[in-house]
């Protein structure tokens, strides 16, 4: 605060200058464009004269990442490689369990050379054994090796209508149905006292808070497998902050509408939709995890997993509908929309995860989910404060803690 006051005179001077006259009487737009134009000129000169050519010492190290592998059939292994370094790399040979093996490079323009940031697939015809670890090494032209171990390999199921249907079914069970069931608490929620309802809202916030941590840790864990050139950790931070600010922007716009007298904008339904979007994004990430595990042949679709997910997600239902408990009951289609928005992304995530999976996409979706969830927690707190004036009451804090604890307990059932 004190900083602002000391800054004020300076701000004032600047303003008076811009208001009065531009240097040399130039039009305002020239002042706006000039720095950019000069930057272009300097960059051009730099490229043309390359003043650092003599100073450049040595050469950068080759840097490549195998982001993930797929096993489309029992006689093929596919490595997904990205060149992180500033120089091109050439994959000269491939070692499978310390033996030179045939391979093809797909997606690198017909050769085995990857430009900086270029990605390619290295297809190795190898009759691997299910469950027996596979050590793969790419030998680059300068002899550097890039290694990857496929632990306990299993066939990836590949793309088919069957798989789409299976994933849709899983999504229905672990996403849509539990959220819908949870929403059936709505009539009950309408009857309870304000204090209890606020407790339920804070319980929902606890649920979401847990999910934010859960997804956040997972995003950073995945970020380690993101090729270095994409700065995995910063990508996650960007996803979180970006989603948070975007949703908050929508929310701020809504508040502006509400203040201007738009009754629809002031209803709890807005918050309900925001919660649904936040949970939906989280469930999208959950679907990605299921889908990618499925793609890697890692899912045992036992009843335990499905039951775990259902218990876990049923708590998300009341979180969605609690904000509208004090309003007039919205039209039924709103409930359907809320349920689909919150639950159905599991299906979408499953599809994306199984067919177009990459750690980069996975981590980014998780991060977006975290950002959205944080905003929703913020929103719920604001809602309770508006109605009650006090978010940090004993009941509310306890409800938040219970929400957190219930999620932790049910999370134990979900072993993916």
């Amino acid at each position, binding site marked *: 605060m004190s900083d602002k006051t000391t800054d004020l005179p300076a701000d004032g001077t600047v303003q008076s200058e811009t208001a009065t006259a531009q240097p040399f009487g130039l039009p305002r737009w020239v002042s706006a464009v000039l720095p950019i134009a000069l930057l272009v000129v300097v960059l051009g000169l730099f490229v043309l004269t390359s003043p650092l050519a003599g100073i450049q010492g040595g050469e950068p190290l080759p840097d490549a990442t195998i982001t993930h592998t797929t096993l489309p059939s029992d*006689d093929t292994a596919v490595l997904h490689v990205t060149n992180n370094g500033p120089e091109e790399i*050439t994959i*000269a*040979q*491939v*070692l499978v369990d*310390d*033996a*030179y*093996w*045939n*391979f*093809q490079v797909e997606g690198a323009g*017909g*050769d*085995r*050379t990857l430009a900086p940031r270029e990605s390619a697939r290295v297809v*190795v*015809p*190898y*009759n691997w054994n299910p469950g027996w670890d596979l050590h793969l090494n790419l*030998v*680059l*032209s*300068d*002899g*550097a*090796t890039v290694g990857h171990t496929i632990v306990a390999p299993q066939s990836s199921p590949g793309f088919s209508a069957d798989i789409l249907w299976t994933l849709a079914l899983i999504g229905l069970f672990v996403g849509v149905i539990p959220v819908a069931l949870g929403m059936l608490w709505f009539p009950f929620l309408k009857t309870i006292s304000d204090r209890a309802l606020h407790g339920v809202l804070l319980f929902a916030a606890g649920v979401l808070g847990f999910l934010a941590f859960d997804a956040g840790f997972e995003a950073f864990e995945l970020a380690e497998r993101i090729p270095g050139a994409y700065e995995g950790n910063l990508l996650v931070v960007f996803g979180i902050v970006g989603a948070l600010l975007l949703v908050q922007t929508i929310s701020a716009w809504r508040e502006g509408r509400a203040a201007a007298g738009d009754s629809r904008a002031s209803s709890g339904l807005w918050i309900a939709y925001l919660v649904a979007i936040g949970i939906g994004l989280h469930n999208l990430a959950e679907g990605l995890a299921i889908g990618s595990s499925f793609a890697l042949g890692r899912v045992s679709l036992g009843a335990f997993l499905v039951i775990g997910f259902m218990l876990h997600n049923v708590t998300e239902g009341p979180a969605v509908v609690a904000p509208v408990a004090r309003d007039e009951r919205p039209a039924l289609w709103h409930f359907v929309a809320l349920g689909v928005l919150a639950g159905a992304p599991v299906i979408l995530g499953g599809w994306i995860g199984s067919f177009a999976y990459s750690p980069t996409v996975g981590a980014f979706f998780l991060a977006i989910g975290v950002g959205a969830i944080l905003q929703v927690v913020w929103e719920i707190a604001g809602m309770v404060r508006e109605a009650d004036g006090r978010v940090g009451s004993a009941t509310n804090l306890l409800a938040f803690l219970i929400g957190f604890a219930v999620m932790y307990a049910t999370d134990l059932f979900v072993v993916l």
Partner: protein
Amino acid sequence: MPRIDYGRAAEITEQLENRLVGSLGGETTVDRRTVLGGLGVAGSAALGLGSRRSEASAGHDDSGDHGNFGAVDEYRDTHFDPHEFLTTFNTGADGQQSVPQRIYEEDGRTVREFELTAVDITIQIAPGIEFEAWAFNGQVPGPTLRAVEGDLIRVEFKNVGAHAHTIHPHLKNVDPAMDGIPQNGPGVLDTDESFTYEWIAQPAGVHFYHCHSLPLKEHVHRGLYGMIIVDPDPERVRENPSDYVTDHPSQITPAMTDDLVAEAETRNHESAANDDVNEMVMVMNGFDTNFDGENEVYAANTRAFAYGVGKTDAKGNWEAGETKRPIQIDRNERQRVYLVNATEFDPINSFHTHSQFFDYYDHGTTLTATKQTVDTIIQAQAQRGIIELDYSDHQPGLYMFHAHQSEFAELGWMSFFEVV
């Protein structure tokens, strides 16, 4: 600190190149560019340069149910030809153009003089894989030197590499100043320094030379090693037969002496009997390309799979490649392999023949086999020996030989004789 003069090193390399090109001058199909293609040029491995060769590559033939084993593609750097190296000996009288050499008499002794120059050079050790080597006369293994028992081997050694080097011979050397180690004689030779080593060629056998600068592991593994073959002198064998057998002198009969002399004649390159033997040099070596103390490439004579097949469908059909092809041998000729183990990082290497048993002469210092009728022998680092093979009763076709450390075999040390 040795002064590093890259300009000078480049000049010497150029000289060596020119000699090499000169030696190929007669072959009009080979132009200078082809010979020097990829020499010292990082990135020459960039694929798709020689489209003719990529058509011939074995890379994308995944018709086999189990996928195809082996290195993909052919060698593009033709600076070193393992097939040529296999049967090339430098005797002072005759040898590689890239190894200046002469033979003359001095004080009643035959002198075989060689000029060896240590250079820094980029070599190709597997298709597309380059290795920053330190090499005698620009090749790994270094030139094979050959003398007759009792000769004087005079090596004019010049170091134009960036690091200090020596040449240490595995010979019976009675002058410690000539041992080629940092602690004796001239010690290590810095960049641009020279020294003339003199060694008496003794005992008869197959021997080894290498740089003995420290760190030893690196100086050997970077490529500073080669073979010295000392042919037995038949006259000396007749006079001192007990020097060439493990038996007690009392056991040596005149008939046995005759046999030993006859065997010595087959070993002596100046004798007519030697012409009937097909002699091959194999230096088992390995290369650690990623500095983890383990070799990524193993081979006999540097290049992974260079004596393998170019292409196979793994169903019994194969084709010779341009640079990867079996060693053709005449079934009616006696086959002799001079074998040395120059592998770094692994304590032992081995040599195993398929469908064949052979006699083995450890260090080649005896004229009777030290191991008879075996199909596998092991060698410690720097151990060497002579392998005598007879394919006269075998049907023509492919016969594999390789290190029986399966790992070494699959990393390149897997080769074939094509018996014709």
